[in-house]
C-alpha cells in the first residue's frame, strides 16, 4: 500500500524533473525535452495502473499551479491551449505502455521500446492531434502532418531511450521493473 503510493508520487516527481532539466543533449547534440520520456518510463517501469496514476498526479499538480510542464508552463490555462490533447493523452499513454509491457513476453528492452512506441506515440498522438484540430480549427489531416513533422523525430528517439533505460534497469536490478513483477 505505502509502496504503491510512494512509487506513484516519486515517479510523478520524476516526470516533473525530466521537464525541468533544460534538455538532455544526445550524442550529436540534438536537444530534446524529456517530459514525454518520463511518461513512457512511468508505463514501462511502474506498469499500467501505477504508471497512469503517477501521470495523473503530475497533471493535477500542474493544474493546481506548479510550473512543471517543460518550458515552465503550468496552471489551469494549459488545459485551454491546443496542447490539451497531449496532456489528456499522457495518462492514457502511460497506461497503454504499461499494459503492453505487462502483456508481452519479449525481453525487457524490446518490450519497453514497443510499449513506448505504442503508448507514447500511437495513443498520445491520437489524443494530441484531435486536441490540436479541435482547438485550432485546422483539419485532422494537416494537424497530423504538423505533429509528425514537429515531434516525431524527437519522440522516436525517446522511445529508444525508454527501451534502453528500462533494459538497463532490468539488468541491474531485475526486481525494480514493477511492470514485470
Amino acid at each position, binding site marked *: 500500500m505505502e509502496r504503491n*503510493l510512494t512509487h506513484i*508520487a516519486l515517479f510523478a516527481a520524476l516526470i516533473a524533473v525530466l521537464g525541468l532539466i533544460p534538455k538532455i543533449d544526445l550524442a550529436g547534440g540534438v536537444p530534446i525535452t524529456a517530459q514525454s520520456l518520463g511518461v513512457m518510463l512511468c508505463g514501462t517501469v511502474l506498469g499500467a495502473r501505477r504508471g497512469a496514476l503517477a501521470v495523473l498526479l503530475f497533471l493535477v*499538480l500542474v493544474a493546481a*499551479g506548479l510550473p512543471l510542464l517543460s518550458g515552465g508552463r503550468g*496552471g489551469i*490555462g494549459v488545459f*485551454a491551449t491546443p496542447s490539451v490533447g497531449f496532456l489528456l493523452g499522457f495518462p492514457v499513454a502511460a497506461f497503454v505502455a504499461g499494459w503492453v509491457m505487462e502483456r508481452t513476453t519479449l525481453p525487457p528492452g524490446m518490450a519497453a521500446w514497443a510499449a513506448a512506441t505504442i503508448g507514447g506515440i500511437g495513443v498520445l498522438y491520437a489524443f494530441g492531434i484531435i486536441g490540436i484540430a479541435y482547438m485550432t480549427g485546422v483539419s485532422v489531416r494537416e494537424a497530423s502532418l504538423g505533429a509528425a513533422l514537429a515531434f516525431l523525430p524527437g519522440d522516436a528517439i525517446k522511445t529508444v531511450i525508454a527501451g534502453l533505460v528500462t533494459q538497463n*534497469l532490468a539488468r541491474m536490478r531485475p526486481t525494480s521493473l514493477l511492470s514485470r513483477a
Partner: protein
Amino acid sequence: MLTLTSPVETWAHRVRAGVKLALLAVATTGLFVLGSPLALAAVLGVIVGLYLSGGTDFAIAGLRLLRPLWPFVLIVALWHLWTGNPVGGLVVILRMLAAVGLANFVTMTTRLSDMVTIFQRLARPLQVFGLPPRRLALAFALVIRFLPVMLDRMEQIGASWRARSPRRPGWRVLVPATLAALDDADRVAEALRARGGAG
C-alpha cells in the same frame, strides 16, 4: 519551489478559490458557445480589464504567461488565411487567448495550498473507490518535497559523470536517476509504515 501565484496582491486573491474555479468553468463553457468575433473581442477586453485591475506589473506578468501561445496563434492565422476563412481564424485565436488568459488569471490569484485543498475536496467522492482524501494529500506533499531532492540528485549524477568522462552524459544518467527514484520510493514507504502507514 516557485509557483505561478502572483506575489502582487490583488483583490482577486481574496476571493475564495472555489468561487473562482466555478466562475472559470462557467465562463470557459460560455467562450466555447460564443461564435461571433465581436462578442469574443468584448470578452477579451473584459479579461484585459481584469488583469489591469491588479496593476501594470501584474498585467505584464500575465502577458508573459501567454508567451507559449504565439506559435499556435501564428499557425492558426496562416492556416485560416490560406483556407480563405479569416473570420473563423479570428474566432479561434480570440477564444484561445480569452480562455487561457482567464484560467491563468485564476491561477495567478490563487495560492497553491488553496488550490490543493479544493482538489482534495473535489476528490472526496473517490473515497468510494478506495482513495481517502488524506492519501491524496500525502501524495501531493511527497511530490512537492521530492522535486528539489531529485533535481539535486540529477545534478550530482551529471557531475560525477563529468568527473570521469570527457564525453556528454546523454541518456545514461537516466538509469541511476530512475533507480534512485525507485530506491527512494521503497525507503519512504518503509518510513511511512514505521510511522503508522499512509492511512
